[in-house]
C-alpha cells in the first residue's frame, strides 16, 4: 500500500486550475522530489496533502485513509511540513518553545516533551541554541528548528515546500544533509522545489507543469531530458548539458557520465 495516493485530484483558486486531474503515488521510505516552475501547482499540492486546502475533485489517501474532515487531524499527525519562509513558521518565543509547540498540540506529557526536545534538537544540531530567540538565529537555523519541531511529532512523511529557497548556500547544504539523514532513518521525503539540484539525491523525480504531471522518473532520466525540462520552463544543469552534448557526438563513456554526475552534486 502506497503511503500517499492521489486520484484525479483537481483544485482551482479561480477559473484556472492549479491542480488538474492529478494522480500520483508515493511509497513509504521513498524520497520524491517534485520540480516545476512557479505557478505549476506544487505548493498547492502540499497544502492539499495536509488538508489546508480541500480537494474539489478526486481523492487523497494517506496510509490507506481517505483525507476528509474527520480524518484530517489524524493525517496531519502523519505528515510534517516545512514551509518556505523561516520566520513565518516559528511560533514559539524561543527555540525550545517552538519545538514544543507541536508536542503541546498533541498533548504529549511533560517529561516525554523534554526528552524529544533534547533528542531532536541534537538531531538537527540546534541543541546549543535552545533558549535563543528567533531574532538571534539565521534563516538556516530557523529552518532546522522547524525540522526539529516537525520531527518531534514523529511523522511518517515530511514535506519540504521550497524549504531551502530563502537560505544561503551553507544553510541549504545543512538542510540537504539533514534530508539525507532522514532518508537513511527510513522517513519518507517529499521535496517540492524549483531547484533541480535538489532533485539529484531523490529516488524519483516528478515534473509538474500547469497543475499536471508531465513525467515521473529517476533523476537520471529526468535531468537529461532537455525538451521535457524546457516545456516545464526549467533550465538544464550544466553537467547534464555536457552529458547530452557528448552523447550526441557518441563520446559519452560510462566514466564521463559518472564524473559529470558527481560534479552536479558539487554545484
Amino acid at each position, binding site marked *: 500500500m502506497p503511503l500517499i495516493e492521489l486520484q484525479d485530484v483537481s483544485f482551482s483558486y479561480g477559473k484556472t486550475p492549479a491542480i488538474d486531474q492529478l494522480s500520483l503515488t508515493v511509497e513509504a521510505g521513498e524520497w520524491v522530489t517534485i520540480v516545476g516552475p512557479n505557478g505549476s501547482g506544487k505548493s498547492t499540492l502540499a*497544502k492539499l496533502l*495536509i488538508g*489546508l486546502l480541500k480537494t474539489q475533485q478526486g481523492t487523497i489517501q494517506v496510509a490507506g485513509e481517505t483525507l476528509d474532515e474527520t480524518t484530517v*487531524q489524524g493525517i*496531519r*499527525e502523519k*505528515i*510534517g*511540513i516545512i*514551509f518556505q*519562509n523561516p*520566520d*513565518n*513558521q*516559528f*511560533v*514559539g*518565543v524561543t527555540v*525550545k*518553545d517552538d519545538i*514544543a*509547540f*507541536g*508536542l*503541546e*498540540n*498533541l*498533548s*504529549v*506529557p*511533560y517529561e516525554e*516533551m*523534554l526528552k524529544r*526536545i533534547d533528542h531532536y534538537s541534537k538531531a538537527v544540531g540546534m541543541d546549543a541554541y535552545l533558549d535563543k*530567540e*528567533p*531574532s*538571534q538565529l539565521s534563516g538556516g537555523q530557523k529552518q532546522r528548528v522547524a525540522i526539529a*519541531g*516537525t520531527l518531534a*511529532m514523529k511523522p511518517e512523511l515530511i514535506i519540504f515546500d521550497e524549504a531551502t529557497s530563502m537560505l544561503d548556500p551553507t544553510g541549504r547544504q545543512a538542510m540537504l544533509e539533514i534530508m539525507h539523514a532522514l532518508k537513511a532513518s527510513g522517513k519518507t521525503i517529499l521535496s517540492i522545489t524549483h531547484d533541480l539540484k535538489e532533485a539529484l539525491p531523490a529516488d524519483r523525480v516528478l515534473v509538474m507543469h500547469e497543475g499536471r504531471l508531465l513525467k515521473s522518473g529517476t533523476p537520471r532520466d529526468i535531468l537529461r531530458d532537455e525538451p521535457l525540462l524546457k516545456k516545464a520552463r526549467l533550465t538544464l544543469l550544466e553537467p547534464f548539458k555536457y552529458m547530452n552534448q557528448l552523447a550526441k557526438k557518441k563520446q559519452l563513456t560510462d566514466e564521463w557520465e559518472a564524473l559529470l554526475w558527481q560534479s552536479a552534486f558539487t554545484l
Partner: protein
Amino acid sequence: MKNIVIGRYIPGDSFLYRMDPRVKLIALFILFVAVFVIDELLVMGLALLGILVLLPLGKISLKKVYFGLRPLLFLLIFTFVFQILFNTQGRLLGTLRLTFDPLNVALSVGIFAAWLFLKRFTSFTFISFLVMVAGVLTLLSQLTLLASFGSFTIAIYEEGLLFAIFILLRLVIIVTLSTILTITTKPTDLNLGLERVLKPLKIIRVNTEEIAMIIGISLRYIPTLLDEANKIILAQASRGVDFQEGKIKDKVVQIISLLVPMFIISFQRSDELANAMEARCFVPGKPRTRLNQLTWKPLDTAVLVVTLTLMIVSIGVRILW
C-alpha cells in the same frame, strides 16, 4: 533592531525575580487592595517606607523605579496641585496673592518660553519645570510695578495639603508596585502567569488559553515586524521618501508609504503562520499540554502569607483606628 526589549523587563536575580508569576500577580492585587483600604496618612507613609525597604532587598535601584514613574509624573503633579487648590477644609496654612500687571505677566511668559526652549538641552526636565514654576510664582506675587489688571489668591488649607500628600503617596505606591512587577518579570512569564491566574474565567466561557496564545504570538512577532518596518523605511528612503523632515502633509504621505506595505506583509505573514500552526496540529480550544510549567516554591507561600497579613492589618487598622 536585534534583541529588542519588550516591556520594561530588566534581567537580574533576587527573590522578586524568582517568584512564581502567578504569585506576583496575586500579591500585587492583594497589595492594591491593602493600599486602597488605608485611609490614614501615617499608615500610607509606613507603606511607602515598606516599599523603600523592599527595593534594596529585591535589588531594584530607585532609578529604575523612577523610569517607571516618569511617564506619570505630570499626572501626579496635576492631582497634587488640584487637591491643594480646591480642598478648602481645615486650618488655613497660608496664602499667596498673585497680582497680574503687564510687566510681570510678560516676564512670566518669557520664563516659560525660555524653559520650553532650554528643556531639550537638560536631562533634568522635571526639576527645571519645578524651578520654572517657582520662578513664575515668585514673580507674580512679589513684582508689581505697573497698574495691575487682576489678582488671584492661592490659599492652602491643612486638610487639603495632607489629603494631597495622601493621594500622591497612594498613586506613587501603586505605580511603584506595578513597575516592580514589570521590571522583574519577562513578558512571556507574565503572559503565562496571567493565563493561569485567570483560568477560573473559563466558567463564564472566557478562553484564557487562546487569549494567552494571541498575546504570546504578538510578543514573538513584535521584533520581526519592527525589523520589517525598518527594511521598508530603508526601501522607501532609497526611493526618495524622506522620513526625517517635511510638513504635516508630507508626513501623512510618508506614514502611508510605510503602513500600506506593513499591512499587506502582516496579513501574508499571519496567513502563513496560521497554516504552519494548523499543519502542526493546532486546533483552537483543544486541550494542550504545556512545556512551561510553573512551580510553587516555599518563597511563594511566604510572599502570599506576608501580603495577606499586610492586607488584614490595613483592614484592621481602618476598622479599629
